[in-house]
């Protein structure tokens, strides 16, 4: 079957290569690399007619900061200073750049930037497990066992045209989120649209350069040998699994062949002051890498920060009380505000949508361990850049932060909005491996208050 989502099998019948020189191998390599050639892929995509960007769409790329585990809304962006002590955050609240808007004291840099940021305080759903909640937020579909839906990143990778040799969808450090390793993956789309997992250390992404003693020419030579090897073998037939694999080699070679692409990963090129501004945390380094990747052509970069599943000791764990100025909230504040500011200074904020969210909020009542448990009925999301009007607060929860009393926003609403801001029509159809057309989203409406 040939469809845009499932490129046709590679052209068979390569010429016999008895006596072929290395030069010829190189030639073969360029004409018939593994899987479909780049040109062929681009041609295919062009034939299928990518959608004209949704009217007025400003965002060309998206950076998602994912607070894995479910960040407490009551201790960050939806503070309830007047609630009784069993609900109230152990932290104080501080004013922000927006008169009347107050947030947690451990987010001072973010507070100063709230003019750039739209805050939704009424994200609500009913899936209180990490896996199902994460799937709901990251795919815009209530999870069902019968079909895996693609994540937002994979949808963007599939539909946003990019001539860059950089992978369109990158996950820092990897796409295993929410206790469910499929929530951020490609679902029914081919695995080729899943994220490039850069690994544990964003400042040193491995395997971008050929190993010592192996020249670039030799890498290309090996690639051509591999193509020939596969074409000579009768034991393994073409199929979706082999096509996915071939597509990954194809992407790998594009990346290896491009000095500009590899350069995007070189954080050492950033001045120390910039690295300092983002902070030394993995989240800070990840956000800086995300900015460089977006600049160089990636379309959707997820920076995953784990440890937000705060069932215990919020007062001690969110800001690390043993090391003042460190801990989850201070490093988030530093990295997030640095990213938004840096994008603005570079004139990239208008074209880059920056998202900050997690799978759900946390119980309004502090539990016996001084923590909060899962609470999907209320949560927050921050959006900045990409055409979003900052300085707005959308929705509100009741006085204990239990549920929205104003403008409830569902995960499909959020997903639909993100896609439309990126110029993708959520009612557009994609094709499952068995040829079934599927609307990208079944539900959800654009959150007009954002623009």
């Amino acid at each position, binding site marked *: 079957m040939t469809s845009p989502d499932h490129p046709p099998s590679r052209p068979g019948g390569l010429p016999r290569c008895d006596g072929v020189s290395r030069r010829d191998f190189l030639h073969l390599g360029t004409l018939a690399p593994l899987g479909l050639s780049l040109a062929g892929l681009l041609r295919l995509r062009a034939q299928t007619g990518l959608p004209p960007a949704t009217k007025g769409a400003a965002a060309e790329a998206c950076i998602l900061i994912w607070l894995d585990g479910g960040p407490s809304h009551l201790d960050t962006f939806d503070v309830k200073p007047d609630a009784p002590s069993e609900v109230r955050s152990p932290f104080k609240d501080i004013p922000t750049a927006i008169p009347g808007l107050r947030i947690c004291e451990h987010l001072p840099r973010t507070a100063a930037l709230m003019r750039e940021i739209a805050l939704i305080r009424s994200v609500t759903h009913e899936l209180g497990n990490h896996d199902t909640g994460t799937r709901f937020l990251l795919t815009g579909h209530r999870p069902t066992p019968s079909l895996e839906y693609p994540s937002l990143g994979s949808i963007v990778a599939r539909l946003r045209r990019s001539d860059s040799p950089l992978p369109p969808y990158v996950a820092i450090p990897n796409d295993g989120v929410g206790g469910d*390793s499929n929530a951020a993956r490609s679902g029914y789309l081919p695995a080729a649209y899943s994220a490039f997992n850069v690994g544990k250390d964003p400042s040193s992404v491995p395997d971008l350069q050929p190993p010592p003693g192996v020249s670039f020419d030799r890498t290309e*030579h090996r690639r051509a040998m*591999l193509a020939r090897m596969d074409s000579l073998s009768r034991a393994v037939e073409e199929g979706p699994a082999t096509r996915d694999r071939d597509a990954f080699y194809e*992407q*790998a070679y594009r990346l290896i062949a491009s000095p500009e692409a590899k350069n995007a990963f070189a954080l050492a090129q950033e001045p120390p002051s910039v690295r300092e501004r983002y902070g030394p945390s993995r989240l800070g380094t990840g956000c800086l890498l995300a900015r460089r990747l977006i600049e160089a052509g990636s379309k959707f970069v997820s920076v995953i920060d784990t440890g937000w599943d705060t069932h215990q000791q919020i007062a001690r764990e969110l800001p690390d009380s043993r090391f003042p100025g460190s801990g989850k909230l201070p490093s988030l504040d530093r990295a997030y505000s640095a990213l938004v500011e840096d994008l603005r200074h570079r004139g990239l904020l208008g074209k880059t949508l920056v998202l900050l969210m997690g799978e759900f909020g946390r119980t309004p009542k502090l539990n016996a361990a001084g923590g909060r448990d899962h609470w999907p009925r209320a949560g927050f999301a921050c959006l900045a850049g990409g055409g979003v009007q900052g300085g707005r607060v959308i929705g509100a929860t009741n006085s204990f932060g239990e549920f929205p009393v104003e403008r409830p926003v569902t995960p499909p609403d959020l997903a639909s909005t993100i896609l439309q801001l990126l110029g993708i029509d959520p009612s557009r159809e994609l094709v499952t491996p068995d040829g079934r057309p599927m609307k990208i989203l079944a539900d959800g409406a654009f959150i007009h208050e954002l623009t």
Partner: protein
Amino acid sequence: MGLPVNHPFASGVPSAILLLFSLLFTPAQAEPAPFRTSILPILTKAGCNSGGCHGAATGQGGFKLSLFGYDPDEDFLRITRERAGRRVDYDRPEESLFLQKPARQLDHEGGRRLPRDSDDYQVVLAWIASGAPHGPEDLHVSGIDVAPNDILLPDPPDTVSLRVTARLSDGSHQDVTRLALYTSNDEAIADVSRNGAITSRGRGLTSIMVRYAGQVAAARIAIPYATSTTSADFTIRNFIDTRIRTELARLGLDPSPLSADPDFLRRLTLDLTGRLPTPAEARAWADEPGSPERRAGLIGNLIARPEFVDYWTLQLADLLLLGGKGSDDPASRQYHAWLRDQVDRNTPMDQLVRDLLTAEGDTKTVGPANFFTLSNDPRDLSEHVGRMFLGTRIACARCHAHPNDRWTQEDYHQFAAYFARVGRDGDRIQVRQRGEVDHPKSGFPVTPKPLGAPRPSHASPIPTSLSLRSEAKVGEGGSAIAEPGEGPPLRSEAKVGEGGSAIAEPGEGSSLHSEAKVGEFDRRAEVAAWLTSPDNPLFARSLVNRVWKHFFGRGLVEPVDDLRPTNPATHPALLDALAHDFAGHRFDLRHLIRTIATSHTYQLASTTTPSNRLDDRLFSHAYLRELPAQVFLDAIVQATGVPHRFEGQPDDIRAVQLVGPQVPSAALEVLGRCDRVGPCVPSGQGGGLAKALHLVNGSTLHDKLNAGIVAHLHDSNAPIPEILEELYLRTLTRPPSDEESAAWESLLARAPDRREAIQDLFWALLNSREFGFNH
């Protein structure tokens, strides 16, 4: 909770209205419709209590219903009493908010759900007119039946209609076809209408999920690929083949031919031992044709090898999430050693699971006690147990009735209550005297009860850890629920003590008195006995389904941890037969593996025929499976002859032998090793582009191409054909074809640098599809 059987207003309803409705309706409906079995299903069908509408946790527009009607009594109160009963108007029923909203006579965000001219509207109207009675308090739907439930639709497009009958607790039956909810599990194969009419859309096998009043069922739909097939070469080796062939014939699929001998050797060795055949094994195997007897002999030999024990320990460790979190290294090593010992001794799986579920003691010395380091929360533990050993996902029912399964919140918490008294004190897992799971609504402790089964009647005395240690026979707990005639006497010989005595700690045996007391409040033995009983339909099925997936790349039920009535197996009879055979052979893992590996079905070629090319679930041919991370790394090591070093581990340890993810390995991570934090999916966290980059540029391959066999072949100045044969046998378990020899011989002969040429060819072999897939 006490609810009035008849609503107090019922007597005040004007008799004229009752008369009017008795004229309007058939005699069967003259009796006021009970809320739970007649009104609630109408709301569910109309979508009123779905998650996006009033079923949302916060309700909608100030009106909240339980999700899909899981709490009928609460719904009844909300409809008839909340807001001072203003939702229903007994005097002017048609002016009830409860009708005017869904009929869209008043503004309703959810749109028109109950048109005035519909039968459902009339039923609700009559119900309100008769005083909106609750009906008999305990009347409920106890089950539903779907007919037909196994459908063959000959030629698309074609249509067939389902009929759904509800069984009520009073013994009566109701046709509920109109009110049941239908979902196709694969709309590309068959669609289903709101009224249960199925239309074929493609070819293949799927099922229709049917839900009604908290009960679920499914109908299987088959739409053949062709009308006639030839399966002349398909030999029946055991009961697996009979059932696979039946379905292939029904679906019009030709099976592929039997796998070629070298392919079979490679596939079987990888599946049983997680390693490649050596060149010597490949040469010896090629000496004579792999007759069925010879293949069976090979299966027996491989099952007897220590590598088999290593590899199946890894399978179980992945299942148990061994060392994923909460366990430190010495404890995980102890756990792993215990597990390996069980596999080595072929401990029956039921016994192994009972030993796990009843273990206690120091996690550094008592391996199985580490099971309880998975979580301190009994609810989390019950979810793990449900997923691992029952293949069922109960997590939904923590907060509301499972929408696609039969588990209620009650079931969930009663099951979790079995684990309420397991505690952790430093490194020790111990049973506490107290500990309950409270019902989330009532706040009162619930009584433990197995999932979907009554509590065993032998609740006292229950087998305790004390009885386990004193070499009591498992039969004590098991026999009370075991049915006679289930095959050979399953339990009488399997002594639990085998595992138990090994974990007894010095000094513990002396304090008999305190242990006896422990037995009184430890609830785990009861649940362990129930769970592993041959009568438990889920235990054996979930295990055989997982093992099946290991060999075929796809379970008979997918996903393997989602066995439920609405997600039927592709081959239900085969799943039952395998489970029965497994239980009948004392849950003997080796027996199960041998049975599967011996089948003709397992030995089919992976290459397709024009007839079966599109099949991905009927096992007409072997499906390609990517080598798992550890197996792939070990295969590289074996082929190159260069070991891979793991920090703090012996030099010659293989990746499949590692205790778990706490042994750091950048290579295994990028190749996609299961991190054992959550259930593992085949492609883990690595894979994809990162894996491709690593194989092209990374040190794992590069380092191994500079030494070992490459150095040997280069230094020994072996003739080119010999080099080629060696490299092909080491990687692909076969010599090169003539075409391949011709292609590479000339290349090697002309290469300016022979060593580099060998490296490059070897690199290509190790990156080839044929190497990377089990085929």
